[in-house]
Protein backbone atom coordinates (compact mmCIF):
# COMPACT_ATOMS: atom_id res chain seq x y z
CA UNK A 1 0.00 0.00 0.00
CA UNK A 2 2.95 2.36 0.54
CA UNK A 3 4.04 2.14 -3.05
CA UNK A 4 2.44 5.21 -4.56
CA UNK A 5 3.53 7.67 -1.89
CA UNK A 6 6.71 9.43 -2.93
CA UNK A 7 8.19 12.79 -2.07
CA UNK A 8 10.97 14.21 -4.17
CA UNK A 9 13.45 16.55 -2.61
CA UNK A 10 16.81 17.66 -3.92
CA UNK A 11 16.48 15.19 -6.80
CA UNK A 12 16.05 12.23 -4.54
CA UNK A 13 12.89 10.23 -3.97
CA UNK A 14 11.71 9.50 -0.44
CA UNK A 15 8.90 7.33 0.86
CA UNK A 16 8.24 9.86 3.59
CA UNK A 17 8.10 13.65 3.77
CA UNK A 18 9.42 13.67 7.35
CA UNK A 19 12.75 15.20 8.30
CA UNK A 20 14.09 15.03 11.84
CA UNK A 21 14.67 18.62 12.92
CA UNK A 22 18.05 19.96 13.89
CA UNK A 23 18.96 19.75 17.56
CA UNK A 24 16.44 17.09 18.43
CA UNK A 25 18.03 14.05 16.80
CA UNK A 26 21.75 14.58 17.40
CA UNK A 27 23.47 13.08 14.35
CA UNK A 28 20.91 10.28 14.22
CA UNK A 29 23.29 7.80 15.85
CA UNK A 30 21.28 7.13 19.00
CA UNK A 31 18.10 6.75 16.96
CA UNK A 32 19.82 4.40 14.51
CA UNK A 33 20.98 2.22 17.38
CA UNK A 34 17.39 1.85 18.59
CA UNK A 35 16.03 1.22 15.09
CA UNK A 36 14.04 4.45 15.23
CA UNK A 37 14.93 5.96 11.86
CA UNK A 38 12.23 4.12 9.95
CA UNK A 39 9.88 6.66 8.47
CA UNK A 40 12.42 9.48 8.42
CA UNK A 41 13.42 10.77 4.98
CA UNK A 42 16.53 12.36 6.45
CA UNK A 43 18.12 13.43 9.70
CA UNK A 44 19.15 17.05 10.16
CA UNK A 45 22.10 17.22 12.51
CA UNK A 46 22.63 19.33 15.58
CA UNK A 47 24.19 22.67 14.60
CA UNK A 48 27.86 22.40 13.72
CA UNK A 49 30.12 25.40 14.20
CA UNK A 50 33.73 26.19 13.28
CA UNK A 51 34.99 25.92 16.85
CA UNK A 52 33.62 23.65 19.56
CA UNK A 53 30.90 25.28 21.65
CA UNK A 54 30.10 24.40 25.22
CA UNK A 55 26.60 25.75 24.91
CA UNK A 56 24.64 27.77 27.43
CA UNK A 57 24.64 27.23 31.19
CA UNK A 58 21.92 24.88 32.45
CA UNK A 59 19.05 24.59 32.81
CA UNK A 60 18.69 24.37 29.07
CA UNK A 61 15.21 22.91 28.91
CA UNK A 62 12.33 24.51 30.77
CA UNK A 63 8.75 23.47 30.36
CA UNK A 64 5.90 25.92 30.23
CA UNK A 65 2.24 25.14 30.54
CA UNK A 66 1.78 24.46 26.85
CA UNK A 67 5.26 24.19 25.40
CA UNK A 68 8.97 24.00 25.83
CA UNK A 69 11.72 26.58 26.12
CA UNK A 70 15.22 25.58 25.13
CA UNK A 71 18.47 27.37 25.60
CA UNK A 72 21.00 24.92 24.23
CA UNK A 73 23.20 27.56 22.69
CA UNK A 74 24.49 25.46 19.80
CA UNK A 75 26.48 23.11 22.03
CA UNK A 76 28.57 21.02 19.64
CA UNK A 77 32.08 19.63 19.35
CA UNK A 78 33.02 21.79 16.36
CA UNK A 79 33.50 20.89 12.73
CA UNK A 80 36.85 19.11 13.18
CA UNK A 81 35.44 16.66 15.68
CA UNK A 82 32.29 16.26 13.60
CA UNK A 83 34.43 15.30 10.61
CA UNK A 84 36.67 13.01 12.63
CA UNK A 85 34.19 11.17 14.80
CA UNK A 86 30.55 11.76 13.95
CA UNK A 87 30.42 11.74 10.15
CA UNK A 88 32.27 8.42 9.78
CA UNK A 89 29.74 6.84 12.14
CA UNK A 90 26.89 8.58 10.35
CA UNK A 91 27.95 6.90 7.11
CA UNK A 92 25.97 3.91 8.41
CA UNK A 93 22.67 5.78 8.82
CA UNK A 94 19.81 4.18 6.92
CA UNK A 95 18.82 7.61 5.59
CA UNK A 96 20.63 10.72 4.40
CA UNK A 97 22.11 13.22 6.85
CA UNK A 98 21.78 16.97 6.36
CA UNK A 99 24.27 19.00 8.39
CA UNK A 100 22.91 22.05 10.18
CA UNK A 101 25.58 24.75 10.19
CA UNK A 102 25.74 27.79 12.46
CA UNK A 103 28.22 30.62 12.74
CA UNK A 104 29.24 33.57 14.81
CA UNK A 105 30.11 35.63 11.76
CA UNK A 106 29.11 35.67 8.12
CA UNK A 107 32.46 34.12 7.18
CA UNK A 108 31.99 31.20 9.56
CA UNK A 109 29.34 29.65 7.33
CA UNK A 110 31.45 29.11 4.19
CA UNK A 111 34.39 28.14 6.40
CA UNK A 112 32.42 25.31 8.03
CA UNK A 113 30.99 24.20 4.70
CA UNK A 114 34.45 24.11 3.12
CA UNK A 115 35.54 21.72 5.84
CA UNK A 116 32.38 19.61 5.57
CA UNK A 117 32.97 19.27 1.82
CA UNK A 118 35.88 16.97 2.74
CA UNK A 119 33.34 14.33 3.75
CA UNK A 120 31.14 12.40 1.32
CA UNK A 121 28.58 11.76 4.07
CA UNK A 122 26.37 14.90 4.10
CA UNK A 123 23.45 14.84 1.70
CA UNK A 124 23.18 18.60 1.97
CA UNK A 125 23.28 21.44 4.46
CA UNK A 126 20.91 23.55 6.49
CA UNK A 127 22.26 27.02 7.17
CA UNK A 128 21.05 28.18 10.54
CA UNK A 129 20.89 31.98 10.47
CA UNK A 130 18.19 32.01 13.10
CA UNK A 131 19.19 30.56 16.45
CA UNK A 132 17.50 32.51 19.24
CA UNK A 133 20.00 31.21 21.78
CA UNK A 134 23.23 32.92 20.82
CA UNK A 135 24.35 36.44 21.38
CA UNK A 136 25.92 37.19 17.96
CA UNK A 137 25.23 40.90 17.87
CA UNK A 138 21.89 40.42 19.53
CA UNK A 139 20.10 39.89 16.25
CA UNK A 140 19.90 36.66 14.32
CA UNK A 141 21.56 37.02 10.92
CA UNK A 142 18.27 35.95 9.46
CA UNK A 143 16.64 39.29 10.30
CA UNK A 144 18.44 41.06 7.48
CA UNK A 145 17.74 40.05 3.87
CA UNK A 146 21.08 41.50 2.82
CA UNK A 147 23.01 39.33 5.25
CA UNK A 148 20.94 36.29 4.34
CA UNK A 149 21.70 36.77 0.66
CA UNK A 150 25.37 37.30 1.39
CA UNK A 151 25.62 34.15 3.50
CA UNK A 152 23.72 32.12 0.90
CA UNK A 153 25.97 33.24 -1.91
CA UNK A 154 29.14 32.59 0.11
CA UNK A 155 27.91 29.10 0.90
CA UNK A 156 26.90 28.53 -2.72
CA UNK A 157 30.43 29.30 -3.81
CA UNK A 158 32.03 26.59 -1.70
CA UNK A 159 29.32 23.95 -1.59
CA UNK A 160 28.98 21.11 -4.06
CA UNK A 161 25.80 20.05 -2.31
CA UNK A 162 22.34 21.56 -2.01
CA UNK A 163 21.52 23.67 1.03
CA UNK A 164 18.53 25.17 2.81
CA UNK A 165 18.57 28.43 4.76
CA UNK A 166 16.73 28.22 8.07
CA UNK A 167 14.98 31.49 8.86
CA UNK A 168 13.78 33.20 12.01
CA UNK A 169 10.19 34.24 12.74
CA UNK A 170 11.34 36.71 15.38
CA UNK A 171 12.68 39.65 13.44
CA UNK A 172 12.65 41.07 9.97
CA UNK A 173 10.39 39.71 7.26
CA UNK A 174 10.39 35.98 6.68
CA UNK A 175 9.23 36.46 3.09
CA UNK A 176 11.94 38.99 2.28
CA UNK A 177 14.57 36.81 3.88
CA UNK A 178 13.35 33.78 1.93
CA UNK A 179 13.56 35.73 -1.32
CA UNK A 180 17.06 36.83 -0.36
CA UNK A 181 18.10 33.24 0.33
CA UNK A 182 16.77 32.26 -3.09
CA UNK A 183 18.56 35.14 -4.74
CA UNK A 184 21.77 34.06 -3.02
CA UNK A 185 21.46 30.59 -4.50
CA UNK A 186 19.85 28.58 -1.72
CA UNK A 187 18.23 25.31 -2.79
CA UNK A 188 15.52 25.52 -0.10
CA UNK A 189 14.40 27.55 2.89
CA UNK A 190 13.42 26.14 6.25
CA UNK A 191 10.42 27.91 7.79
CA UNK A 192 11.29 28.35 10.59
CA UNK A 193 13.38 28.20 13.77
CA UNK A 194 11.89 28.52 17.25
CA UNK A 195 10.02 31.60 18.44
CA UNK A 196 11.63 33.76 21.07
CA UNK A 197 10.00 32.86 24.36
CA UNK A 198 10.49 33.24 28.07
CA UNK A 199 9.24 32.15 31.43
CA UNK A 200 9.46 34.28 34.54
CA UNK A 201 8.92 33.18 38.11
CA UNK A 202 6.83 36.05 39.50
CA UNK A 203 7.48 34.99 43.09
CA UNK A 204 11.23 35.38 42.77
CA UNK A 205 11.40 37.80 39.86
CA UNK A 206 13.85 35.43 38.20
CA UNK A 207 13.69 33.64 34.89
CA UNK A 208 14.61 29.95 35.02
CA UNK A 209 16.77 30.34 31.90
CA UNK A 210 20.04 32.09 32.69
CA UNK A 211 19.83 34.08 29.46
CA UNK A 212 16.19 34.88 30.30
CA UNK A 213 14.87 34.24 26.81
CA UNK A 214 15.04 31.01 24.84
CA UNK A 215 13.54 29.25 21.86
CA UNK A 216 9.91 28.28 22.36
CA UNK A 217 8.30 25.32 20.66
CA UNK A 218 4.83 23.89 21.08
CA UNK A 219 2.20 21.99 19.12
CA UNK A 220 0.08 25.11 19.68
CA UNK A 221 2.40 27.02 17.33
CA UNK A 222 1.40 24.96 14.30
CA UNK A 223 -0.89 27.71 12.89
CA UNK A 224 2.06 30.12 13.01
CA UNK A 225 4.17 27.73 10.92
CA UNK A 226 1.27 27.05 8.56
CA UNK A 227 0.88 30.78 7.84
CA UNK A 228 4.61 31.35 7.34
CA UNK A 229 5.02 28.31 5.10
CA UNK A 230 2.04 29.41 3.05
CA UNK A 231 3.18 33.00 2.47
CA UNK A 232 6.75 31.91 1.80
CA UNK A 233 5.75 29.18 -0.66
CA UNK A 234 3.85 31.78 -2.62
CA UNK A 235 6.90 34.04 -2.74
CA UNK A 236 9.76 31.72 -3.72
CA UNK A 237 10.29 28.92 -6.24
CA UNK A 238 12.69 26.84 -4.17
CA UNK A 239 11.37 24.12 -1.87
CA UNK A 240 10.11 25.14 1.54
CA UNK A 241 10.89 22.87 4.48
CA UNK A 242 8.34 23.35 7.23
CA UNK A 243 9.40 23.28 10.87
CA UNK A 244 7.39 24.02 13.96
CA UNK A 245 4.55 22.51 15.93
CA UNK A 246 4.11 19.15 14.24
CA UNK A 247 2.88 16.31 16.43
CA UNK A 248 0.19 14.65 14.34
CA UNK A 249 -0.07 13.22 10.85
CA UNK A 250 -2.75 15.84 10.10
CA UNK A 251 -0.21 18.56 10.83
CA UNK A 252 2.13 17.17 8.19
CA UNK A 253 -0.64 16.99 5.60
CA UNK A 254 -1.71 20.53 6.46
CA UNK A 255 1.82 21.85 5.92
CA UNK A 256 2.22 19.92 2.67
CA UNK A 257 -1.09 21.39 1.51
CA UNK A 258 0.36 24.85 2.20
CA UNK A 259 3.24 24.24 -0.14
CA UNK A 260 5.87 22.60 2.06
CA UNK A 261 8.12 20.18 0.17
CA UNK A 262 9.10 18.31 3.33
CA UNK A 263 8.09 18.62 6.96
CA UNK A 264 10.34 18.55 10.00
CA UNK A 265 9.56 17.09 13.39
CA UNK A 266 11.57 18.39 16.32
CA UNK A 267 10.26 18.75 19.84
CA UNK A 268 7.84 15.85 19.40
CA UNK A 269 10.76 13.58 18.58
CA UNK A 270 12.05 14.10 22.10
CA UNK A 271 8.72 12.82 23.37
CA UNK A 272 8.47 9.98 20.84
CA UNK A 273 11.80 8.82 19.46
CA UNK A 274 9.98 6.78 16.82
CA UNK A 275 7.78 9.72 15.85
CA UNK A 276 8.81 9.44 12.19
CA UNK A 277 7.50 5.90 11.87
CA UNK A 278 4.33 6.64 13.83
CA UNK A 279 3.53 9.84 11.97
CA UNK A 280 4.28 8.39 8.56
CA UNK A 281 2.06 5.40 9.24
CA UNK A 282 -0.81 7.59 10.48
CA UNK A 283 -0.35 9.86 7.49
CA UNK A 284 -0.51 7.05 4.96
CA UNK A 285 -3.62 5.75 6.68
CA UNK A 286 -5.24 9.15 6.42
CA UNK A 287 -4.31 9.42 2.75
CA UNK A 288 -5.65 5.92 2.08
CA UNK A 289 -8.91 6.67 3.85
CA UNK A 290 -9.40 9.72 1.63
CA UNK A 291 -8.43 8.44 -1.76
CA UNK A 292 -11.14 6.89 -3.89
Amino acid at each position, binding site marked *: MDKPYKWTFWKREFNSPILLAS*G*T*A*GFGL*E*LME*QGFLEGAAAVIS*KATTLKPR*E*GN*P*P*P*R*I*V*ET*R*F*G*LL*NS*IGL*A*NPGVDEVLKTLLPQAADLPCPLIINVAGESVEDFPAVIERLEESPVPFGYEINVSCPNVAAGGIAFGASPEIVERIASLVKRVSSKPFSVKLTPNEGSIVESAKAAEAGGADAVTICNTFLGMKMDWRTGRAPLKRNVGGY*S*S*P*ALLPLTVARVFITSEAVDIPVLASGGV*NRAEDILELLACGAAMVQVG*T*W*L*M*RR*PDAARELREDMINLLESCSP
Partner: protein
Amino acid sequence: MPLSFISEAEPGRFLQLEVSQGSFPVTRRPFTISSVAGNSVDIIFEAVGRGTEILAETKEGRSLRLLGPLGCGYRLNSGKWLLIGGGLGAAGFPGLAAGIDCDQVLLGASSRGKLLTIPGARTVAITEDGSSGTKGLVTDLLGSILWDSYGGIALCGPVPMMKAVIEAIPVKARANVQISAEAMMGCGWGACEGCSVPKAGGGFLKCCSDGPVFPADSIDWERWEGIH
Protein backbone atom coordinates in the same frame (compact mmCIF):
# COMPACT_ATOMS: atom_id res chain seq x y z
CA MET B 1 7.41 -5.43 30.99
CA PRO B 2 9.48 -7.16 28.30
CA LEU B 3 12.32 -9.33 29.58
CA SER B 4 14.89 -7.36 27.61
CA PHE B 5 13.92 -4.32 29.65
CA ILE B 6 14.28 -6.19 32.92
CA SER B 7 17.62 -7.66 32.00
CA GLU B 8 19.00 -4.24 31.12
CA ALA B 9 17.57 -2.46 34.14
CA GLU B 10 20.88 -2.24 35.95
CA PRO B 11 21.12 -0.25 39.17
CA GLY B 12 21.30 3.49 38.56
CA ARG B 13 19.66 3.48 35.14
CA PHE B 14 16.40 5.32 34.61
CA LEU B 15 13.30 5.36 32.48
CA GLN B 16 11.27 8.09 30.81
CA LEU B 17 7.54 7.95 31.48
CA GLU B 18 4.96 9.57 29.25
CA VAL B 19 2.74 11.07 31.93
CA SER B 20 0.23 12.64 29.54
CA GLN B 21 -1.74 11.10 26.72
CA GLY B 22 -2.24 14.49 25.17
CA SER B 23 0.15 17.13 23.92
CA PHE B 24 0.88 18.75 27.30
CA PRO B 25 3.14 18.53 29.20
CA VAL B 26 5.29 18.06 26.13
CA THR B 27 8.19 16.11 27.62
CA ARG B 28 8.37 12.80 29.42
CA ARG B 29 9.46 12.56 33.04
CA PRO B 30 12.60 10.68 34.12
CA PHE B 31 12.55 8.30 37.09
CA THR B 32 15.26 6.11 38.54
CA ILE B 33 14.54 2.41 38.33
CA SER B 34 14.19 1.62 41.99
CA SER B 35 14.16 -2.15 41.78
CA VAL B 36 13.13 -5.01 39.53
CA ALA B 37 11.37 -8.18 40.52
CA GLY B 38 10.14 -10.86 38.16
CA ASN B 39 8.84 -9.01 35.13
CA SER B 40 7.99 -5.82 36.94
CA VAL B 41 9.86 -2.65 37.67
CA ASP B 42 9.35 -0.29 40.60
CA ILE B 43 9.81 3.43 40.67
CA ILE B 44 9.40 5.64 43.71
CA PHE B 45 8.23 9.16 43.18
CA GLU B 46 6.87 12.19 44.92
CA ALA B 47 4.15 14.43 43.49
CA VAL B 48 6.04 17.71 43.22
CA GLY B 49 4.57 19.22 40.07
CA ARG B 50 2.40 18.78 37.07
CA GLY B 51 3.79 15.53 35.70
CA THR B 52 4.10 13.70 38.98
CA GLU B 53 0.65 14.88 40.01
CA ILE B 54 -0.85 13.36 36.87
CA LEU B 55 1.11 10.22 37.68
CA ALA B 56 -0.13 10.15 41.25
CA GLU B 57 -3.71 10.31 39.99
CA THR B 58 -3.18 7.59 37.40
CA LYS B 59 -5.33 4.57 38.20
CA GLU B 60 -3.85 1.15 38.79
CA GLY B 61 -3.92 -0.97 35.70
CA ARG B 62 -3.59 1.95 33.25
CA SER B 63 -0.75 1.47 30.83
CA LEU B 64 1.72 4.25 30.19
CA ARG B 65 4.33 4.58 27.47
CA LEU B 66 7.80 4.21 28.80
CA LEU B 67 11.29 4.47 27.37
CA GLY B 68 14.22 2.69 28.90
CA PRO B 69 16.25 1.54 30.55
CA LEU B 70 18.26 4.63 29.73
CA GLY B 71 21.65 5.98 30.75
CA CYS B 72 24.61 4.50 32.54
CA GLY B 73 24.22 2.96 35.98
CA TYR B 74 26.67 2.25 38.76
CA ARG B 75 30.03 0.61 38.14
CA LEU B 76 29.53 -2.31 40.49
CA ASN B 77 32.96 -2.25 42.12
CA SER B 78 33.80 -5.21 44.30
CA GLY B 79 34.19 -4.76 48.03
CA LYS B 80 31.76 -3.43 50.60
CA TRP B 81 29.52 -0.51 49.74
CA LEU B 82 28.31 2.53 51.59
CA LEU B 83 25.13 4.18 50.29
CA ILE B 84 24.34 7.77 51.22
CA GLY B 85 21.01 9.22 50.17
CA GLY B 86 19.08 12.42 50.70
CA GLY B 87 15.29 12.30 50.38
CA LEU B 88 14.13 10.67 47.18
CA GLY B 89 17.73 10.56 46.05
CA ALA B 90 17.72 7.10 47.61
CA ALA B 91 15.04 5.91 45.17
CA GLY B 92 17.57 3.82 43.28
CA PHE B 93 19.15 2.24 46.37
CA PRO B 94 16.88 -0.82 46.70
CA GLY B 95 18.02 -2.15 43.33
CA LEU B 96 21.61 -1.12 43.95
CA ALA B 97 21.73 -2.69 47.41
CA ALA B 98 20.49 -5.96 45.94
CA GLY B 99 23.30 -6.05 43.40
CA ILE B 100 26.30 -5.31 45.62
CA ASP B 101 27.74 -6.16 49.01
CA CYS B 102 26.00 -3.39 50.92
CA ASP B 103 27.51 -2.65 54.32
CA GLN B 104 25.29 0.20 55.36
CA VAL B 105 22.97 2.93 54.14
CA LEU B 106 22.88 6.46 55.52
CA LEU B 107 19.62 8.23 54.81
CA GLY B 108 18.61 11.80 55.43
CA ALA B 109 15.21 13.34 54.92
CA SER B 110 13.20 16.31 56.03
CA SER B 111 10.92 14.12 58.13
CA ARG B 112 9.98 10.54 58.86
CA GLY B 113 7.43 10.31 56.06
CA LYS B 114 10.06 11.12 53.48
CA LEU B 115 12.49 8.40 54.53
CA LEU B 116 12.74 5.48 52.15
CA THR B 117 13.17 1.88 53.23
CA ILE B 118 16.01 -0.08 51.66
CA PRO B 119 15.06 -3.75 52.05
CA GLY B 120 17.75 -5.97 53.56
CA ALA B 121 20.21 -3.18 54.19
CA ARG B 122 21.49 -1.87 57.53
CA THR B 123 20.18 1.68 57.57
CA VAL B 124 20.96 4.69 59.73
CA ALA B 125 18.50 7.52 59.33
CA ILE B 126 18.49 11.18 60.27
CA THR B 127 15.72 13.71 59.83
CA GLU B 128 15.70 17.46 59.85
CA ASP B 129 12.80 17.54 62.28
CA GLY B 130 13.93 14.59 64.39
CA SER B 131 10.78 12.60 63.65
CA SER B 132 12.91 9.55 62.90
CA GLY B 133 16.50 8.83 64.00
CA THR B 134 18.47 11.76 65.31
CA LYS B 135 17.71 15.32 64.34
CA GLY B 136 20.05 16.78 61.77
CA LEU B 137 21.51 16.45 58.31
CA VAL B 138 23.05 13.43 56.66
CA THR B 139 26.46 15.04 57.00
CA ASP B 140 26.08 14.68 60.77
CA LEU B 141 26.29 10.90 60.29
CA LEU B 142 29.66 10.86 58.59
CA GLY B 143 31.98 11.29 61.60
CA SER B 144 32.62 7.62 62.33
CA ILE B 145 32.74 6.27 58.78
CA LEU B 146 35.81 4.25 57.87
CA TRP B 147 36.03 5.57 54.35
CA ASP B 148 38.93 3.40 53.26
CA SER B 149 37.01 0.24 53.99
CA TYR B 150 34.62 0.75 51.08
CA GLY B 151 35.06 -0.47 47.54
CA GLY B 152 32.12 1.63 46.47
CA ILE B 153 30.32 4.66 47.79
CA ALA B 154 27.00 5.67 46.20
CA LEU B 155 25.72 9.18 46.80
CA CYS B 156 22.48 10.69 45.66
CA GLY B 157 20.43 13.68 46.76
CA PRO B 158 20.12 17.42 46.33
CA VAL B 159 23.26 19.03 44.90
CA PRO B 160 24.18 21.05 48.01
CA MET B 161 23.80 17.92 50.14
CA MET B 162 26.00 15.87 47.81
CA LYS B 163 28.60 18.61 47.71
CA ALA B 164 28.68 18.82 51.50
CA VAL B 165 29.07 15.06 51.80
CA ILE B 166 31.91 14.94 49.31
CA GLU B 167 33.74 17.73 51.10
CA ALA B 168 33.51 15.63 54.27
CA ILE B 169 35.10 12.61 52.59
CA PRO B 170 38.88 12.25 52.71
CA VAL B 171 40.32 13.09 49.30
CA LYS B 172 41.68 9.61 48.75
CA ALA B 173 38.31 7.96 49.23
CA ARG B 174 36.53 10.38 46.90
CA ALA B 175 37.69 8.37 43.91
CA ASN B 176 35.32 5.61 44.99
CA VAL B 177 32.28 7.86 45.12
CA GLN B 178 29.67 7.54 42.39
CA ILE B 179 26.88 10.07 42.37
CA SER B 180 23.55 9.93 40.63
CA ALA B 181 22.64 13.24 38.98
CA GLU B 182 19.39 14.91 38.08
CA ALA B 183 18.80 17.53 35.42
CA MET B 184 15.91 18.86 33.42
CA MET B 185 15.67 16.55 30.44
CA GLY B 186 14.50 16.90 26.89
CA CYS B 187 14.94 13.62 25.07
CA GLY B 188 16.54 11.41 27.73
CA TRP B 189 18.62 9.52 25.16
CA GLY B 190 21.55 11.74 24.30
CA ALA B 191 20.35 13.78 21.37
CA CYS B 192 19.27 17.21 22.55
CA GLU B 193 22.11 18.44 24.81
CA GLY B 194 19.42 19.58 27.22
CA CYS B 195 20.50 17.82 30.41
CA SER B 196 23.89 19.35 31.03
CA VAL B 197 25.83 18.78 34.23
CA PRO B 198 29.02 20.85 34.65
CA LYS B 199 32.10 18.74 34.03
CA ALA B 200 35.29 18.97 36.05
CA GLY B 201 37.83 20.89 33.99
CA GLY B 202 35.19 22.67 31.89
CA GLY B 203 32.37 21.85 29.57
CA PHE B 204 29.36 19.72 30.31
CA LEU B 205 28.34 16.12 30.72
CA LYS B 206 25.02 14.77 29.51
CA CYS B 207 23.07 13.58 32.50
CA CYS B 208 20.99 11.19 30.39
CA SER B 209 23.66 9.36 28.44
CA ASP B 210 27.01 10.11 30.10
CA GLY B 211 25.17 9.51 33.41
CA PRO B 212 22.99 9.75 35.37
CA VAL B 213 25.62 7.96 37.51
CA PHE B 214 28.99 9.70 37.45
CA PRO B 215 32.27 9.37 39.33
CA ALA B 216 32.04 12.22 41.84
CA ASP B 217 35.34 13.66 40.64
CA SER B 218 34.10 14.06 37.07
CA ILE B 219 31.76 16.84 38.20
CA ASP B 220 32.55 20.54 38.63
CA TRP B 221 30.78 20.95 41.94
CA GLU B 222 31.20 24.71 42.21
CA ARG B 223 29.52 25.38 38.90
CA TRP B 224 26.89 22.76 39.53
CA GLU B 225 25.94 24.23 42.88
CA GLY B 226 25.78 27.65 41.25
CA ILE B 227 22.96 26.46 39.01
CA HIS B 228 20.75 25.42 41.92
